[in-house]
């Protein structure tokens, strides 16, 4: 319970002790308080980063040295053997499938959900926010109501309905393309764009199609970035649906594969961790490069309230 202990007990006090720096007009924080602040942050950061460090170090150690108490952190006996094994062949998976097969499945599924989702959901949001037509209010209401319903609420009946199409790629992405929450995010963004845009464009003779593709889409890059990031994170980590719909390794996405991998003795922990690093690495790189966008998209998810 180390994470709790580091901040537990005196949350309000600590928050307060540090609340003065952002108060305009107050004195600059004393060097002592500043130093204390950095110490607290560093300790917290180390606790937060410890599991990730453990994963990275473990992925470069022989399997029998990974599970070694605190020694698991020590960078001894480092080797790239685990990565070679994972990338070359899947020795532990009798199916004979390669790492690239699982990767490809995850890539196809995530790409289809994100790419098709961007088109379909932004178009719907445009019609709902900037065009006048009968039935608009009803559809909008329906979308807002569906935002409440998490996927878990329909997983079982969907499993029943699509049971004949198990172990395909499409069953893993088609149900997730249309997304009420994405529509809602686009909707709030489009509705906030100035109305004069439409009027000016219409005076110039632009129809609804031109207006959308020439004016609204180019102005809405933040909304597209947010939806891309949120949908990608969700689809790359999707687990419940593959558990029910996929049992053949050929179409198994990465999260399901790592759960299968870690359930078969003898547990090759070094390789499992290497697999884990490879599975999260592209997301981490993109996250570090586009951190501002990640942070903004998560923050924009919060405006739903």
């Amino acid at each position: 319970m180390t994470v709790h202990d580091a901040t537990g007990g005196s949350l309000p006090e600590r928050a307060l002790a540090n609340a003065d720096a952002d108060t305009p007009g107050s004195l600059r924080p004393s060097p002592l308080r500043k130093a204390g602040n950095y110490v607290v942050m560093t300790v917290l950061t180390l606790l937060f980063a410890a599991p990730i460090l453990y994963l990275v170090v473990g992925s470069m150690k022989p399997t029998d040295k990974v599970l070694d108490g605190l020694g698991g952190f020590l960078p001894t006996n480092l080797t790239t053997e685990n990565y070679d094994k994972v990338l070359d062949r899947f020795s532990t998976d009798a199916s004979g499938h390669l790492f690239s097969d699982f990767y490809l499945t995850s890539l196809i599924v995530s790409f289809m959900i994100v790419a098709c989702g961007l088109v379909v959901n932004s178009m719907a949001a445009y019609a709902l926010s900037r065009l006048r037509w009968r039935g608009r209010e009803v559809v909008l209401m329906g979308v807002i109501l569906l935002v409440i319903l998490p996927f878990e609420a329909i997983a079982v009946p969907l499993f029943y309905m699509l049971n004949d199409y198990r172990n395909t790629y499409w069953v893993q992405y088609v149900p997730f393309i249309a997304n009420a929450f994405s529509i809602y995010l686009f909707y709030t963004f489009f509705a906030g764009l100035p109305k004069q845009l439409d009027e000016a464009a219409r005076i110039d003779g632009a129809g609804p199609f031109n207006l959308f593709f020439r004016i609204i889409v180019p102005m809405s890059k933040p909304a597209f970035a947010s939806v891309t990031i949120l949908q990608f994170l969700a689809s790359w980590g999707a687990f419940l649906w593959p558990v029910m719909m996929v049992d053949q390794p050929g179409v198994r996405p990465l999260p399901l594969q790592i759960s299968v991998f870690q359930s078969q003795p003898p547990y090759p922990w070094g390789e499992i961790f290497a697999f884990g690093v490879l599975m999260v690495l592209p997301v981490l790189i993109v996250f570090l490069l586009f951190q501002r966008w990640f942070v903004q998209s998560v923050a924009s998810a919060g405006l739903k309230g």
Partner: protein
Amino acid sequence: MSTLPVPPETTDDTRPVATRRDTRAALMFVTPAVLGLIVFVLIPFIVAGWLSLHRVNLNSPLPAKWFGFEQYQRILFDADTRGDFYRALLNNFTFAVIVVPLQTGLALALALLLNRPLRGMALFRTFFFMPVVFPMALVAVMWRLIYARDDIGLFNSALNAVSFGQLGPVDWLGDPKFALASIILMSIWQGVGFQMIIILAGLQGIPGTLYEAASIDKAGRWAQFRHVTVPGLRNTLVFVSLVTTIFAFRLFDQVYILTKGGPDNTTTTVMYQAVSSAFDTGNVGKGAAITMVFVVIVVAITVIQRMVLKEEREIS
């Protein structure tokens, strides 16, 4: 800032009435998404209701048979069969009661610490947010080793070191006393960064002039926190608590990978029961009935949150 809430406009009287061209375009634009939502969300939801009133088993060649409210009767009321479901509900509830205040409090503390004009804050933020991009399946696998039995586990080893050999080793995931707590801790580790970012955005939405006014009034730090920060964050905190509460009832991935609901059902959850009924035993009717109860819970939580928010708006 573009991330701040823009109140959506529902009606716009300045625009001309619906034209035929607009209507035709609107229908083309809206149809693919609406069709997708109807086929893959609305219809499954109706099917769930239908299934929950039938006896349907995937492993049985018999066709679906009308079952009335028998599934609900068995899950909720029948003394012989209701035990598992109530145990799952209790676990979800416990998870929510612990995680919501703890995770929100931790996220608020981190956000307040980070919301300061000190150098290096962006770097700290990066680390706190990083677990959010980790797939839960991977997080569960990592923590399986952290929680490993005996002294080879990271946690046991650390516990042993700080207590000079007095405490542990504990079977974190295998001991009924600790299994749920272990799931809770790793879930907080993965989720707190998400809340922290939303709260940070909320903090940045509080006008600095309010703090200026407060300090002119000689309000101390506590008073400023109590009367400026907390009211300014109220809607954000309510939203964040709602998302976390619903998340608590959706709990599945970590339980499936780490404990399969055990030991002694101490980590079973509503979703785990729904999936294992439908998937492992083929009892889709029961799984659907559990799903319907889940929906009632989620809707109830959402309605309560809306009511709380509305009240606040009326007061202020």
